[in-house]
């Protein structure tokens, strides 16, 4: 019984939150990695693109709710997501045509592109706050839990509860679907292969007759999709605040770098490495020991490696460690 309680405790406080946050990070990191591998720059505006996607979802949610279209018990955000994705893609492509394209044609250094993306970040951030305001927006509706802690306790008779929020379930399921679609596209379709070829060897891709503008267009379509879904899921899970997305850029970059920049599989692994490390390092192990060890061995104190205040800082610490030990990341990415 104690053993099962311990397992439940770990699932409830580490496994499920880790999977959820990890999926969100992984989707974000995929966006960054794909822009990097095709366009060869670190896109600091990606966090704001995510925010833009989330904002589009919220606005559409309001519209749909006012029209009394909903999907109870699922949140309305699910129905509006496809439309929000289209809006986000449109914005990404617009930004590319007006801004990034110029520097691509100039063959600018990646660092110039990076600074340009900061300009885009400022502009987009301002635009978002201008449209929707800086405040907190909760746009979750529908059933809150798939599995309530109390139900679980009653059902199993364990003293530890296990809860699964609807947002967590949606996040994990949607992420899996999206990642499968992405990998199918990249590995099985001609266009996807041509994208990989372009990112691998631009000159040869041009010699083979691959149209660079088309590759760039598809890159932004994928990036916009990923950004919108990741942003919406994050906002749905933790409530939307424009401000938080600026701070999300760094954990996402950490995830991308930890996994190996330019490598999609790496981005996903990186996302989970970051999310689980955050939880594992800040988890108070006292209760676990309580279940797994005889009572007289359970030590005093919370047994946290780092206090919860440092949760987000952990992603930066991992980033620094990875840069120190293995700058190419877990999966050998392209060294920036």
């Amino acid at each position, binding site marked *: 019984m104690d053993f099962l309680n311990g397992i439940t405790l770990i699932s409830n406080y580490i496994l499920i939150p880790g999977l959820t946050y990890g999926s969100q990070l992984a989707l974000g990191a995929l966006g960054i990695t794909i822009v990097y591998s095709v366009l060869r720059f670190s896109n600091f505006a990606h966090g704001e693109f995510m925010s833009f996607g989330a904002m589009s979802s919220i606005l559409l949610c309001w519209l749909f709710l006012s029209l009394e279209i909903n999907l109870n018990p699922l949140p309305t955000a699910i129905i509006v997501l496809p439309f929000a994705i289209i809006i986000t893609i449109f914005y990404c492509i617009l930004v590319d045509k007006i801004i990034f394209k110029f520097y691509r044609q100039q063959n600018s250094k990646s660092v110039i592109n990076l600074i340009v993306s900061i300009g885009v970040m400022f502009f987009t951030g301002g635009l978002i706050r201008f449209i929707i305001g800086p405040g907190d927006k909760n746009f979750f509706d529908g059933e809150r839990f798939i599995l309530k802690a109390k139900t679980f306790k009653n059902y199993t008779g364990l003293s530890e509860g296990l809860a699964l929020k609807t947002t967590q379930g949606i996040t994990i399921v949607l992420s899996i679907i999206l990642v499968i679609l992405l990998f199918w596209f990249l590995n099985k379709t001609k266009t996807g292969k*041509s994208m990989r070829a372009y990112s691998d060897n631009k000159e040869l891709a041009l*010699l083979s007759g691959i149209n660079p503008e088309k590759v760039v267009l598809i890159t932004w379509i994928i990036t916009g999709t990923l950004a919108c879904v990741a942003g919406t899921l994050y906002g749905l899970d933790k409530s939307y605040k424009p401000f938080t997305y600026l701070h999300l850029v760094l954990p996402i970059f950490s995830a991308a770098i930890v996994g190996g920049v330019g490598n999609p599989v790496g981005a996903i692994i990186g996302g989970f490495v970051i999310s689980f490390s955050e939880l594992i390092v800040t988890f108070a192990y006292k209760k676990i020991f309580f279940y797994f060890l005889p009572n007289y061995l359970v030590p005093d104190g919370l047994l946290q490696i780092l206090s919860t205040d440092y949760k987000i800082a952990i992603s930066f610490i991992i980033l620094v460690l990875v840069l120190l030990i293995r700058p190419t990341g877990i999966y050998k990415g392209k060294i920036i």
Partner: protein
Amino acid sequence: MYLLFGENITCGYGSVDILFNCDVGVNEGEISSIVGPNGAGKSTAMKALFGLLPIKQGKIILDGEDITNMPPRQRVLKGMGFVPQTNNIFPSLTVEENLEMGAFVEQHDCTKMLEYIYELFPVLKDKQFQLAGELSGGQRQQVAVGRALMTKPKVLMLDEPSAGVSPIIMEGLFNKVTEIANQGTAVLMVEQNAKQALKISNLGFVLNQGKNLFTDTGNSLLENKEVRQAFLGG
């Protein structure tokens, strides 16, 4: 009449000219080699023919059609294949994907061409699902040539195919080149190993300092005393 003919070409990088009134070409189903010392402008000639460098003077004719101002992508469609000297594969794509990318501009199914390539280079068949970046130097060259052949080009252009591979592999590669030419694809190549290249070539162009020095059949160039002394090491 040449199948592919660069006539009277002058070109270079920026304001510096590398080639001066150069003629290079290849006949249908034949092999032509461009040889000469370092800095003679051999690779530049290749790039110019494929449209990777703007031409200041002269014209390029493919199968009777003037293609001087055509972008490279268009030339691929018209039946030209080009294998650059370096970075000529997609290292993180599998061998088969590399070949598929060669046929990117083709609308129809490419399985037939794939079979032909695998027949030509049986090693690649065994490694078709391996990443091209993990192959040996010689195998990479085969992938590179295979990729360029995927569009069934009329002319295949090879920029120093033997660079960086061992003599044995080089010999095998040249055998393949002969085979390709026998199957009806004209081959125009630039080579450092002038002797071996000229042996299998129908035509040879000896360049020096961006100018045509000698143009003759491969064998007669090999026997030409002047050429032997100056460029073939006696």
